[in-house]
């Protein structure tokens, strides 16, 4: 079985509203895709994504697996810079190792 990955540019993500962004991610993941966001999601957006996901969990869709690098503080700690976020269907994606600068994941076909 083939596994599709969507590598989404920061420009595309930034052009979307908050809810639009989450819907885009969740629809992609529910279709069985691995979604990689350049620039990533903020922790608040990730929390909202968990909330949205929980409303749609059922017997066929148990949820998501999500990983990313923590936000970096910008000048004088005033600006938070999000980084890469990877989201996939929980049935397919399993994180095996995560460190500050390295995420290793196994992705398997359902």
């Amino acid at each position: 079985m083939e596994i599709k990955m969507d590598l989404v540019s920061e420009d595309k993500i930034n052009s979307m509203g908050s809810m639009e962004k989450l819907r885009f991610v969740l629809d992609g993941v529910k279709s069985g895709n691995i979604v990689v966001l350049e620039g990533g999601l903020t922790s608040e957006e990730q929390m909202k994504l968990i909330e949205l996901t929980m409303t749609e969990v059922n017997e066929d869709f148990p949820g998501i697996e999500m990983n990313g690098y923590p936000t970096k503080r910008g000048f004088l700690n005033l600006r938070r810079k999000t980084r890469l976020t990877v989201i996939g269907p929980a049935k397919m994606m399993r994180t095996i190792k995560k460190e500050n600068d390295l995420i290793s994941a196994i992705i398997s076909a359902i």
Partner: protein
Amino acid sequence: MKPKKRGKGILLRLLMAFFLRRKTPKIGIYGPPNAGKTTLANRIIHTFVDENEDIGAASNIPHETRRAVRRSGIMVDLKLGAVQSPDPNHGSDPEPKVKGRKERAKGKLKLDVVDTPGLATKIDFHDFMAYGLEEEEAKRRAKEATEGVIEAIKWLDDIDGVVLLMDATEDPYTQTNVIIIGNMEARGTPIIIAANKVDLADAAPERIMNAFPQHPVIPISALKGENMEKLYEEMARRFR
């Protein structure tokens, strides 16, 4: 004239008490499923309220707590906490990594404790069947667990401080932990990380300290009551 003066004083004190009163902080106990959140909440209540009162039932089946439960008006008395927590004699445990220790914790703090359902990004009913639950029961529990996660997230809006509980035998660098910490930092909500289950042989609280050096990490065993006085001191310091 004297009675009139006394009357004014009482009125002034009443007005000051009304307008300057401080609300009781609501402290949420957050963390992934099976970290020991309900065990910790029960421990706090047993220590400071009533030995026979439980906020909820603890179990080894994940998502045992599927509704947030609030226990109001808990008077955390550090003297009482020190007496009731057994001396852990943490010979091998590292000293808790706590910022701002110069500021001494004061003796008493009244707070509300909110025991929340475990936060998770996935809930598969098959996982419950592995614990011996029938399929229908497992599906029902999974459905309730998803509602519990949403409830825990909604509660974040009303929380004044968070005790984030992590299982010291597990890898702390999970996205759920990172998300909770990131949200609290963005909101400016004080946070204490409790590295639970240090009574187990494979516990490694220093991994949690290394993963989240920007926050105080207190190694505890909520089940055995080890090092609880350190957690209470930090709560009194951070959540006042």
